[in-house]
């Protein structure tokens, strides 16, 4: 053997050793997280999948297999299809609305010379409130249908009769209630992400633009600010889309659920509420699991479509 060959072999061994070491480190760093995700995600998912193929009434033991009947039963139930339609419409509205609202808030708060911290705090604080508490305030105080509600007090100032904000379909004011609860709870958080991203835009970019004569607010926004916010925007849209598809709490707590009779939920029942009722009220765990998988498939599909459109993941795997 000649010397260079030995050196190459040595280097190869070293590299292999280093790879091995990195591999061991990698997996041991990930171990706690992966173990938890296996225990509380993977096993329940496999279990749930088996259930979705079973007739599992009042039991969570898969075994009475009935093929895809849970899936076909769901997809031929007009109320389930209705719920998919409901969440689609809701998502198509709430995602752009949240995006535009939080972006506008961030730009406005960012641009004012004084009082930044105050406004930032005020818009961010609702993030601390739970959906349950927010729904309670909306249903029982802000938007209650009697004259004692806050919104109806304002309406009364203009000499109008109290409005049924929640219980009626014509006009469907309940959408206003649902949307404002969600916006109130989440725009502050996304505003903070935008604000952070805004602070990271190098000033030199604006100065260069000013030198080039680009002074109009719109031009700067269109050609400098927005492109620089691209990564933040993509994250926000992704998180927001997933959150919108999984909407449950405000629908459940405002239109039905604990503390109110259930007839209003039929006005706008998102799929997770449908599944909750099937699994936990009717205790048909097979059909409940099947519904869960249908929703998951939809979320994955929409995330992929959105990712394609916005180019999310193009920088992945570096």
């Amino acid at each position, binding site marked *: 053997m000649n010397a260079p060959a030995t050196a190459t072999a040595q280097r190869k061994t070293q590299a292999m050793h280093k790879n091995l070491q990195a591999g061991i480190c990698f997996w041991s760093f990930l171990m706690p997280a992966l*173990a938890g995700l296996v225990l509380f995600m993977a096993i329940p998912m496999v279990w749930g999948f088996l259930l979705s193929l079973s007739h599992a009434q009042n039991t969570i033991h898969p075994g009475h297999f009935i093929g895809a009947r849970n899936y076909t039963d769901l997809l031929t139930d007009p109320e389930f299809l209705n719920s998919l339609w409901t969440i689609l419409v809701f998502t198509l509205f709430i995602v752009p609305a949240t995006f535009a609202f939080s972006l506008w808030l961030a730009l406005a708060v960012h641009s004012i010379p004084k009082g930044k911290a105050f406004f930032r705090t005020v818009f961010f604080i609702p993030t601390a409130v739970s959906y349950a508490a927010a729904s309670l305030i909306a249903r029982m105080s802000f938007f209650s249908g009697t004259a004692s509600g806050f919104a109806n007090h304002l309406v009364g100032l203009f000499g109008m009769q109290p409005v049924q904000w929640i219980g009626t379909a014509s006009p469907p004011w309940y959408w206003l209630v649902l949307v404002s609860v969600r916006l109130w709870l989440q725009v502050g958080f996304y505003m903070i992400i935008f604000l952070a991203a805004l602070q990271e835009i190098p000033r030199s970019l604006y100065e260069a633009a000013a030198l080039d004569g680009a002074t109009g607010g719109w031009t700067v926004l269109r050609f400098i600010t927005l492109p620089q916010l691209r990564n933040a925007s993509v994250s926000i849209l992704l998180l927001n889309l997933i959150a919108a598809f999984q909407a449950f709490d405000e629908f459940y707590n405002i239109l039905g659920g604990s503390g109110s009779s259930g007839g209003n939920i039929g006005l706008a029942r998102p799929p997770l509420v449908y599944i909750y009722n099937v699994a936990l009220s009717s205790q048909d765990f097979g059909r409940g699991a099947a519904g869960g998988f249908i929703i998951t498939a939809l979320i994955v599909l929409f995330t992929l479509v959105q990712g394609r459109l916005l180019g999310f993941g193009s920088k992945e795997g570096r």
Partner: protein
Amino acid sequence: MATPMLTTPVTRRQMLKTFVFAGGALLSGCARSDYIDGKLVLTQWYHQYGEKGTFQAVHRYAREYTRVNPHIIVKVVWIPGDYGTKLATALLTPDGPDVFESTLTQAMVEAGQTAPLNDLFTSQDLADFNPRDIALNSVNGKIYGVKMIDDLGLLYYRKSMLQSAGMQPPATLDELMTLAAKLTTPQRKGLFLGNDGGITAMLNVLPWSAGADFLVNSQIVFNTPRTVLAYQKLQQLNQGGSLLMGAASDWWDPSAFTSGQAAMQWCGMWAYPAIARAVGSDLGAVIWPPLDAQGVPVTFLGGWTAMVNANRPHVEEAKKFLQWQWIQNRAIQTDWCVGYGFHVPPRLSLARTTPKLQQPVPAYAVNMLGKYGKATPPLWNAAMGSDLTNAVTNIVKLGQPAAQQVAAAADMCNRELQRELE
């Protein structure tokens, strides 16, 4: 895509378990044990009753049982929030309660969740319990539950308001609708049936008042013109502008009536003490009036039922305890029915003799419950209820054609029934 996670070596899973257990020990996790100091521990679940004193009462009953049976401790678990969800999930595991309250469904029996209780009743007991309660808790001739309380609905009104409107208590639904409209003022609505416009509260009551029914002899029977008419009337009522909606509390809570937001309210007899306190002798109440000349007056027969979990190791002891509390111990049954809230004891002899039930309104209510109380059978399940509710929401709120919706709901319910009977 989940493959990499599934092939994670078992040892890691084990290690995590150890880790979680170690953490658990640190956090003073108290694992369930059947015995404390050599005494058998039975767990008994209640949903959260709203009335003051109920929480203390159930603990007192439990202590009393230990006094007469020193080798047994009854641990009471009081559950707020979504009791149904919590009970349903707990019954799926070996860790569920020994004795619990719920409403019997045939699916519970078929899944083997509840133990048969026939041997707990003597023939005198059987004769003394409201026969409808016994029937509602029987599946294929076996009794699976003992009714703890009977509830019914009442339409509460103020006599003085009716007088000044020149009206009598309503004898038909049309009279009630006229009355509700007459009693509506800018500050007050005529009638409160719940924040969903009565969809939940009237779901069964209105068709019953038309003479219709839902599930009889394992057949879905509600797809009739009478049911359709009943729901059409509910839609008219919703459009009439005399229904209160959007109140802070719902139909089962008397606040809307006692605070004057509504002139009349459909509520349970359980609210009678609070309403009587607020309204005094001006109070009047009737059960739901017949839909029309072909209809019948009606009220729901509700309440709670005690059952024994068949999947626990000490079924016999649990049955003995349930027998002591809800069959033999008349003092507890009376205390529980009228000591805090206001319910009818399922034992006919107690319902007849309890002094608090002799006042005019409760005496009327007990009488009406015996004559006109109705309930859905154990085979009628939540899925069917939900199919029907959807249809009624579509009729009442969205103005869709009633006949078509009722027929569609009947189809869905038949599908559920087939699943159930498979």
